[in-house]
């Protein structure tokens, strides 16, 4: 399909199939599809699987009350640092499915396997036999029905956001990493090339990793390894909403540090930045926050929708929305405005 291929955590991944900006606009205005088969799909089964995830994750799977419901969460180390972020699906009372990042696969599996062994009575099965295709954009759902069959319309169309349903061999979820409507579809790996082809014939263009990154940044979604890692807690990473500190008796791994941070005050926060001068904000550029100290850009790029540069940055807690800071842009000071993110949702600016 004419893709420019890059190595991503050992996977050959398409960076773009032509123009990254055009691919970005396609997803915001119509739809596009992403081959995200590198994501690590793992099924965990056992009678006490719910209790296991209540221990393993910072968010509380007790919130998952209906089958197919999904929850976004961080998995923390004992110091409260983020090992990975993931989506967990409640399939049934003895089966939860998690979708984790690819680049962190080895350490994730080591951690989950060790925790499961200690907990006991669980089977942990990485699903090497499945592929994953995300179809995203305002027209995405219609295109999926058109390409893969009207039979999907009733079960998949009825899904609320962040839910999944199994239809035959397809697992269809209303999740995504773009801030647009659409599905993420997990399917048997052997059916993936044909499914991809059917979607392509229905007029769904393939979208590369490049546009995937600008879409998620505009949507204000964290990227593991850039916006958070094992040295940062979710509270310092704009992910406080994904941490369930109630009930207080749920002693999930990493909790102590979070309780302490909460009591003493979280020293750093993740904020949005909008560049007011010309140029492009980039990862690791320093942010001078006047009297409040210094921060650093964790994800910076050009926003194709807004047509100027935006970023996520970790800055001292004293920095407030609306403040102006200065970024060292390749040796030149540039003015940025601190904003609440997301920057873009459902095709429209949130600024």
């Amino acid at each position, binding site marked *: 399909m004419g893709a420019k291929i890059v190595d991503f955590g050992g996977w050959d991944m398409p*960076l773009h199939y032509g123009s990254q*900006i055009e691919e970005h606009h396609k997803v915001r205005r119509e739809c596009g599809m992403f081959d995200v088969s590198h994501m690590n799909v793992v099924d965990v089964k056992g009678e006490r699987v719910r209790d296991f995830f209540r221990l393993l994750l910072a968010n509380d799977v007790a919130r998952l009350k209906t089958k197919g419901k999904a929850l976004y969460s961080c998995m923390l180390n004992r110091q409260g640092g983020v090992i990975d972020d993931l989506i967990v699906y409640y399939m049934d009372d003895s089966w939860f499915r998690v979708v984790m990042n690819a680049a962190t696969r080895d350490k994730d599996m080591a951690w989950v396997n060790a925790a499961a062994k200690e907990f006991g009575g669980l089977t942990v099965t990485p699903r090497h036999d499945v592929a994953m295709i995300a179809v995203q954009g305002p027209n995405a759902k219609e295109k999926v029905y058109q390409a893969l069959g009207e039979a999907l319309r009733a079960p998949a169309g009825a899904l609320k956001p962040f839910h999944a349903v199994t239809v035959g061999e397809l697992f269809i979820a209303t999740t995504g990493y773009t801030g647009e409507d659409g599905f993420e579809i997990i399917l048997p790996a052997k059916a993936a090339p044909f499914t991809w082809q059917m979607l392509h014939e229905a007029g769904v263009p393939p979208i590369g990793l490049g546009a995937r990154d600008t879409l998620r940044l505009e949507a204000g979604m964290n990227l593991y390894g850039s916006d958070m890692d094992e040295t940062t807690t979710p509270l310092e990473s704009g992910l406080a909403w994904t941490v369930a500190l109630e009930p207080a008796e749920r002693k999930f791994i990493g909790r102590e540090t979070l309780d302490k941070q909460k009591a003493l005050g979280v020293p750093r926060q993740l904020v949005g930045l909008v560049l007011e001068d010309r140029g*492009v904000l980039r990862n690791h550029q320093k942010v001078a926050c006047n009297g409040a100290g210094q921060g650093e850009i964790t994800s910076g790029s*050009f926003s194709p929708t807004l047509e100027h540069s935006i970023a996520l940055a970790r800055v001292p807690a004293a920095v407030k929305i609306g403040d102006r800071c200065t970024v060292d842009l390749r040796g030149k000071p540039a003015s940025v405005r601190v904003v609440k993110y997301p920057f873009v949702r459902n095709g429209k600016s949130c600024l």
Partner: protein
Amino acid sequence: MSNIPKDLKYTKSHEWLKPEADGSVRVGITHHAQDLMGDMVYVELPQTGAKVTAGKECGVVESVKAASDVYAPIAGEIVEANTVLSDAPETVNKDCYGAGWMFRMRPANKADLDGLLDAKAYEALVASEKH
């Protein structure tokens, strides 16, 4: 495939040069360079009148994914910058050897051009980078 016009001179840092009838030299970045960088979103041009040194940065091109310096290919003085690129940086992707040129300069020493790569040598350089 990279597009490498036969009648231009090239640098190892992927600029092209074209001698003009008035004695000035037009400079831009090559098809290979813009292809590697992808969609351009910002171009910083040198000031007209600026004195530049061979091999020293005199501008910046930024794509969605990366920033890259543009180097003065030879010593001289900038006589014109292509201000079209300030508002339409994508012109570099669309027409890097034409409307996407970056600046014109007056060489301090015309013979400096002879020390640069010809199309054949540049083609070999691009081929070697692909391995």
